[in-house]
């Protein structure tokens, strides 16, 4: 580290630098320096909100009456129900969740096409937890330089104590992370009590164990390796970017030619760019890359380099934004204005940095050329994003409409297949059915099940002695399905076809919902009139 003029320069090198690559690369440890600025503050807020949602949600109570759990968000695997505040979803309504996932996908397209890899940089759990683990690391071992020194020191009692403390806190966080997860799947207060008294099922502890291990390994030990080598997202997201998407960009039209001795060089009458090559952007990068090498797969667009560079620009008295969120279109226009030429490197057309003319960027008055483009929000509105928004809204409105119009009563019928029909001693035909009535309301309900479209038909439950009824009264418990084996008998006089369509009609007694199921009544050839 050296001090050039008033700016601190860092000895930092990009982990993916072109200079030294081997067949198998050992991981180079990254020691991200703490950044300060707008984006860092924004990230603290996002981190607090996302972690808060994750840890607090299972503890929110929601009164659903005596027949359902009072946990606001609950995935009840044992009873195959999903509760989300006022919404309860049965397995056959899972398309709501699928629809939400499609919306999330479209939403991601929209976000990525406008603000780039914002998911990666701000809200991805990997990013949030690595950030949290870094907070611990800094608190225990100090910031970047202290940590680099500590790494080089031989193992002493004090180094061991620091390491031990760090890993212990990491493991605590990891256990808390895994522990919070399982509360989404059972009543949180009860489960917490059982967990602490070792009365929970093995699967609860196993889940905590697995998630503790993944959190600790991914957040503490592997960090950027997860994003670079394990995650498919960077590849997919990169494919969604276009020339109007915001990416974290080093504006080399403004920064080049860079110089560590800008003042002296300027005094000599030579023109240089704004970049003083202080490496602050590399030092803060949690991915350990150098943004000045252009767009890279590894960049999660966390924007901490923007904060770091803005701080330096402030000190130098230059405008902020040497590194900034910029679109490719804006960058190309500015490169052209700066006088840069396109050259061919190994078959690819790239901007040639050496042809940048600082005078065009910063004419004699020292101010940035007013003609330089800055992307406004207007670049967000373009056909592609409008289509995404339209699809997203259509899906959302469709799902909402389906949610508020859905039935809370359903009937499913399965015809006995073996035998298909039974001829009775009086010549009548009997068919057997398995009927399921779903009461999806959180209150007990009574229904009347009858047969429509089959003259003179009788209906009775298997095992029932009275076979002369015309309908059945059925009580179904709250939020339950009731399955029944039942028989329908029809006299020969009403048989008109070997497969005769008729309806099972289920109506709520005392008014309310009603459902109809189209079924078939099967008879032997000889029974048809």
């Amino acid at each position: 580290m050296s001090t050039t003029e008033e700016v601190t320069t860092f000895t930092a090198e990009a982990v993916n630098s072109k200079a030294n690559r081997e067949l198998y690369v050992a991981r180079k440890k990254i020691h991200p320096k703490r950044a300060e600025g707008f984006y860092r503050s924004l990230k603290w807020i996002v981190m607090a909100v996302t972690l808060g949602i994750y840890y607090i949600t299972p503890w929110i109570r929601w009164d659903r009456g005596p027949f359902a759990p009072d946990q606001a968000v609950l995935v009840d695997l044992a009873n195959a129900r999903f509760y989300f505040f006022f919404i309860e979803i049965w397995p056959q309504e899972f398309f709501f969740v699928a629809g939400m996932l499609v919306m999330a996908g479209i939403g991601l397209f929209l976000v990525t096409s406008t603000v780039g890899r914002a998911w990666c940089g701000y809200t991805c759990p990997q990013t949030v937890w690595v950030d949290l683990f870094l907070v611990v690391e800094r608190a225990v071992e100090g910031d970047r330089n202290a940590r680099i020194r500590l790494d080089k020191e031989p193992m002493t009692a004090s180094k061991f104590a620091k390491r031990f403390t760090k890993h212990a806190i990491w493991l605590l966080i990891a256990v808390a992370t895994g522990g919070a997860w399982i509360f989404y799947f059972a009543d949180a207060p009860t489960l917490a009590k059982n967990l602490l008294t070792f009365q929970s099922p093995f699967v609860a502890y196993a889940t905590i164990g697995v998630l503790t291990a993944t959190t600790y390994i991914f957040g503490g030990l592997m960090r950027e390796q997860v994003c670079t080598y394990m995650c498919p997202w960077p590849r997919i997201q990169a494919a969604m970017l276009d020339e109007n998407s915001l990416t974290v960009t080093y504006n080399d039209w403004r920064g080049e030619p860079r110089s560590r001795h800008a003042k002296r060089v300027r005094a000599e009458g030579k023109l240089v760019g704004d970049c003083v090559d202080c490496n602050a952007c590399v030092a803060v990068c949690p991915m350990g890359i150098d943004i000045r090498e252009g767009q890279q797969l590894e960049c999660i667009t966390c924007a901490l380099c923007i904060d770091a560079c803005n701080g330096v620009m402030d000190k130098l008295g230059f405008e902020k934004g040497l590194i900034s969120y910029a679109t490719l279109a804006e960058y190309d226009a500015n490169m052209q204005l700066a006088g840069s030429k396109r050259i061919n490197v190994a078959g690819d057309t790239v901007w040639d940095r050496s042809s940048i003319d600082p005078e065009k960027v910063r004419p004699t008055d020292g101010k940035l050329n007013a003609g330089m483009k800055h992307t406004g929000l207007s670049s967000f509105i373009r056909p592609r994003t409008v289509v995404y928004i339209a699809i997203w809204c259509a899906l959302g409105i469709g799902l909402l409409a389906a949610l508020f119009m859905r039935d809370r009563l359903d009937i499913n019928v399965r015809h006995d297949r073996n035998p298909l029909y039974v001829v009775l001693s009086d010549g009548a035909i009997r068919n057997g059915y398995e009927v399921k009535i779903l009461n999806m309301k959180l209150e007990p309900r009574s229904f009347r099940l009858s047969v429509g479209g089959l003259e003179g038909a009788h209906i009775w439950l298997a095992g029932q002695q009275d076979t002369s009824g015309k309908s059945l009264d059925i009580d179904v418990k709250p939020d339950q399905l009731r399955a029944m084996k039942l028989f329908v008998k029809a006299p020969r006089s009403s048989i008109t076809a070997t497969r005769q369509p008729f309806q099972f009609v289920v109506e709520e007694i005392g008014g309310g919902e009603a459902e109809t199921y189209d079924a078939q009544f099967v008879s032997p050839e000889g029974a048809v009139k």
Partner: protein
Amino acid sequence: MSSDDHHKKEIDELSGTETTGHEWDGIKELDTPLPRWWVWTFYATIVFAIGYVIYYPAIPMIETSSTGISGVTARGQLEKTMAAVGEQQAEKLQKLNITPLEKVVGDDDLYRYAVAGGQSLFKVYCSQCHGSGAQGGPGYPNLNDDDWLWGGTLDKIYATIAHGIRYEGDDDTRLAEMPAFGRDQILDRDTIRQVAAYVRKLSGQEHDAALAEKGAQPFAENCAACHGEAGEGNRDLGAPNLADAIWLYGGGREQIVAQITNPRHGVMPAWLKRLGEARVKQLALYVHSLGGGEKTTASAR
């Protein structure tokens, strides 16, 4: 691409990464270095695979496979599962042994177990004759309907299954024999035709009225003793109801004539000795549940 290209290290200018030396239509493949931890993970999987092959049966041979030191086999696992299930069921079977049939119906849990078990037993021991859905066939009764030769209450069904019908190996077996009116020349051909017409009349089928009228007298003399005046049958004797829509050997004219002339007599094995009390109870409960089962009081007729 010339052959010495293979040996030349080529660095891609833009990425600074070595290429593999392969080229397709001007596109070269970068030889991006693998992270070392990934390589170690790969080695770990190899070590795991070796352990797996040693522990589990894994290597296929011509007729068998290596057994592995664990000795695990699919058959062994099935046996273990079956033993565990058997243990679980032992208690229920014991309970079924000592509980009277009517009481089982009142015990929801035991009843469900009995019927489910009876269904699988039926598939194994009964479906060959009665069909997998108990729908029967010519000569083999349909067990779903409400017509019973020997009675449809739980006890009657139990007795039929336990001791069989015309089964030589069981002293309590149900016995009934219809005389061969034709073969033994008890009735002549014409009379048999008249009786057959009368039987068709009794069951409400299309018939020759003149013939049927002549058949009434011989029917009352020869048949009513067992089958009843109106052909309603007698379950104590196993005499079928001739006035309903269900026929064991067919209700056509020729089929009735054939049965009067030289009757067929079905045989059903006795199962009590083979399957034991609890299993026969399961079968009785299953057959009773198919839709035609009668209450004890209703069988008094």
